């Protein structure tokens, strides 16, 4: 028997190689070189920057319709995956900037932290580029396991440990569903290749029961990763317990990655089941938006509140998924980029205002901070208004995109539920600005204790905030070139 080794087209995964190499170098450097606290963070950031540049400009500039495929079709580099990788890398880069001071202030070992962060990013990139269920699964696992570790990274904090354990247990349970789904699809179609599954279904039109069950299990598996209701139970605890920069990271990149794989599998492999899954997703979208927003109304802990808000935002994105069509997928791409910027921006400020050991964390603790930290408060308000979907911000433009997709596709009801949900969400986003500007520090829950707590000044964090703020306003006021980009990054449907 002769083993043929397929020709590997390295140009399809240069940026992954960079991320992987930097992760390993950082890991080794921590052991061998004993570098200073900050330097590893800068190294990781440079790695992300290089990967970002490669992703956008190599092999050809993003937006041109080049598709590279390698590993005999297991891996594909198209505009779709490149746009998602842009989102991941922006998210990771901003997270690193936020983390540099935080890691030092909380006395956490930096080596594993940045290595894990880059490994999670690598996992997400594999998810976006996988053209087969196996690499997608591999990517999900790489991402998730890194995240389990990062969630519990504040070892001395009980709540962090609890969150990590919960995340791990529930996450592995959900992975089981995903794997079952993949197994059933493989059993029914004889392949895990996305194109193969599509080809099989279109050739054999009868008896799709097993495929349908497999599809339902995949919905559960992906639904867990993107925190769709009713698979969202882990989200609030994990977001609350994880270190704030990790919460920022988790709420943006991994969610986008889950959508990247979800969309690719369902739109490219299972378009024949469109009628069935669109119905499931319709309900999923409605539930996710409504439950997320309504429960967020009563949260006091700001991290927990943003956890529910992030659930709700997954719901808005699902609206775009249901709508599909010419506007749906680009809408999702646009929204995920906007969401990454505004959410990480908000978490950056929360990290900043939180102080040592994240002591300032409830909405009440924020009373009067608008006058103590005017710039941070203005930035936080900007991000929150963007999350609420008020123009002229990225959040508005994104919602505009998604809801117009829904209306174009005839889902008027879904669009109305969506916009009413954003009215509900305004209430809890406003609650924070009320606290910041309209209450005096005496109204803080534990007077004297938290009020005098100084925010830890971190120059790199401020850079991250500045980048996010410019992004939020740029996407909101001059979105033309991003719209062109997302439209050329659509999934090429078979």
């Amino acid at each position, binding site marked *: 028997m002769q083993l043929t080794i397929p020709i590997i087209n390295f140009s399809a995964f240069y940026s992954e190689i960079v991320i992987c190499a930097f992760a390993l170098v950082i890991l080794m450097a921590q052991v061998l070189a004993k570098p200073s606290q900050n330097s590893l963070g800068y190294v990781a950031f440079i790695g992300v920057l290089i990967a970002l540049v490669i992703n956008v400009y190599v092999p050809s500039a993003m937006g041109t319709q080049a598709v590279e495929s390698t590993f005999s079709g297991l891996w594909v580099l198209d505009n779709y995956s490149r746009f998602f990788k842009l989102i991941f890398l922006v998210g990771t880069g901003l997270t690193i900037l936020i983390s540099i001071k935080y890691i030092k202030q909380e006395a956490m070992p930096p080596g594993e932290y940045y290595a894990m962060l880059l490994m999670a990013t690598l996992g997400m990139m594999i998810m976006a580029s996988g053209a087969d269920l196996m690499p997608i699964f591999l990517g999900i696992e790489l991402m998730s396991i890194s995240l389990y570790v990062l969630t519990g990274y504040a070892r001395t904090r009980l709540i962090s440990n609890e969150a990590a354990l919960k995340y791990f247990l529930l996450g592995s349970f959900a992975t089981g569903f995903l794997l079952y789904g993949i197994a059933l699809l493989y059993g029914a179609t004889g392949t895990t290749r996305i194109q193969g599954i599509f080809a099989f279904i279109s050739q054999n039109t009868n008896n799709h029961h097993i495929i349908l069950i497999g599809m339902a299990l995949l919905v559960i598996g992906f639904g867990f990763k993107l925190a769709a209701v009713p698979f969202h139970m882990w989200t609030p605890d994990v977001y609350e317990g994880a270190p704030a920069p990790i919460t920022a990271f988790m709420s943006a990149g991994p969610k986008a990655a889950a959508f990247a794989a979800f969309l690719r599998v369902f739109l490219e492999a299972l378009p024949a089941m469109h009628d069935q899954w669109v119905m499931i997703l319709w309900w999923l979208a409605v539930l996710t938006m409504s439950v997320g927003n309504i429960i967020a109304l009563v949260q006091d802990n700001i991290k927990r509140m943003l956890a529910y808000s992030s659930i709700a935002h997954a719901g808005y994105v699902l609206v775009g998924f249901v709508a599909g069509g010419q506007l749906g997928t680009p809408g999702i791409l646009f929204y995920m980029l906007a969401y990454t910027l505004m959410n990480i921006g908000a978490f950056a400020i929360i990290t900043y205002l939180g102080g040592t050991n994240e002591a300032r964390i409830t909405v009440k603790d924020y009373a009067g901070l608008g006058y103590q930290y005017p710039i941070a408060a203005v930035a936080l308000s900007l991000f929150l208004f963007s999350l609420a979907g008020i123009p*002229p911000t990225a959040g508005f433009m994104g919602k505009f995109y998604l809801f117009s997709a829904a209306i174009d596709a005839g889902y008027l009801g879904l669009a109305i539920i969506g916009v009413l949900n954003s009215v509900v969400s305004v209430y809890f986003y*406003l609650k924070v*600005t*009320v606290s910041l500007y309209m209450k005096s520090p005496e109204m803080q829950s534990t007077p004297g204790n938290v009020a005098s707590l100084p925010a830890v000044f971190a120059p790199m964090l401020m850079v991250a905030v500045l980048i996010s703020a410019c992004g939020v306003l740029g996407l909101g006021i001059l979105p033309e070139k991003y719209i062109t980009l997302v439209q050329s990054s659509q999934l090429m449907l078979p």
Partner: protein
Amino acid sequence: MNIAQIPILSITTYLPLAGIVLICCMSGKRHDLIRWTAFLTTVATFVVSLPIYFGFDASTWQMQFVENVPWIERFGINYHMGVDGISMLLVMLTTFLSALAVLSTWSAVKESVKAYMISLLLLEVGMLGVFCALDFFLFYVFWEVMLIPMYFIIGIWGGPRRIYAAVKFFIYTMSGSVLMLVAILSLYFMMHKATGQYTFDILKYHELNLPAGTQFWMFLAFFLAFAIKVPMFPFHTWLPDAHVEAPTAGSVILAGVLLKMGTYGFLRFNLPMFPQATIQFVPFIFCLAVIGIVYGAFVSLAQDDIKKMVAYSSVSHLGYVMLGMFALNVEGIEGSTIQMINHGLSTGALFLIVGMLYERRHTRLISEYGGLMKVMPLFATLFLVVCFSSIGVPGLNGFIGELLILIGAFKASVPFASVAMLGLLLGAVYLLWMYKRVMYGPITNEENRHLKDMTVREIAYLVPILVFIVWIGVAPKTFLNKMHTTVAHLIEQVNADKTLAKTTDYATDHTNN
């Protein structure tokens, strides 16, 4: 360069932004410098907006001073600005009242002056944008942007229940406008189906003939957004809270300009875009308008807080505006447009006056006052003129507006107009009764004995309003002429469809026979 090519509307709209940038560079402690910068910015904006009034060509209904450049081409979104006879007057009202509003809070706001002035200027940008925008997307952006500064003005510098009022204001307005957004998007795709082009250009939608069923739902969605803003009964409950809690300048802007955004919306969107639905909805709107007029007047009568009384009187006055507008004849619509301006002037002035009293005594309860005429004679005179203007005494602006509206309303429906007359009577009762209790009689409260009469600054911001109150009252033609062609065209747009519908009705009758 031709004068028509200067983007005068954009300059006017964004000039306050320049003031914001300047103020941002200043130290927050230099209150007077910040106040002067803000005031001079608003004055400059008013001066810059003057050419819009004087250069306006009243002989055409076409949009003027048009600026139209692509913004987001892929969606057919343009940066399209322009004014017609109706919006031009509202732009002037906005620049005029904004300058006075800044002047009025010189001493009332002492904390975070910097943020306050920035909010006021940002608010002006939003309001001017709403009146100038001729692109749905642009319109919506301005419409929502304006919520944020107003929310902060009420919430930070307002009265004791300010947080409740601010949040209520924000959520109420937003719930109406998001449904309007859905309607706008639906129209956008209908436009594409009908004509094959993606565009948000408002003027193109005026020519889109929609089926009656669609018109009904679209009208309803826009109605909700604007009715909340106006506010029409029963969507008015945010108004008393917001008005009473807002600081004086906030109330002036809120009553003077923000409410007009609702009525303007009806004129710009509902009437020309959904003519058939408009005619269908006339009885319904008449009903709500008349209820608003009478209910607002009765509730005003029962208030013991002057500011609350003025707030409820707005519900009543805006009822007239709606009544005149949906009379759908020249008198009605012209009356309702001039009444928008009138209400902005006289209610704005009333809020300013309440502000003066509040600054002196820190109370707004009618029972705390009495006999002020003896200590503040000048104040008493000007207050009386403003009250007369609000009541509609001949020779002042209110009379012109109300008269035209009632002529229009009587032409459209005698029963509704007759009930609306009741509001006129009640208007005189609650205002004069309040005036009597505050100004006449013996001085019952010792604290009132040494109140200062109006200061120079107070005279400076009240007298300009009085000038216009008298001007509109004596020579309304100056302003009516400006809008005449526009209004005539608007009525043509609504009625063209009515005659069309009628002829088709006759045609079907004929075939049936």
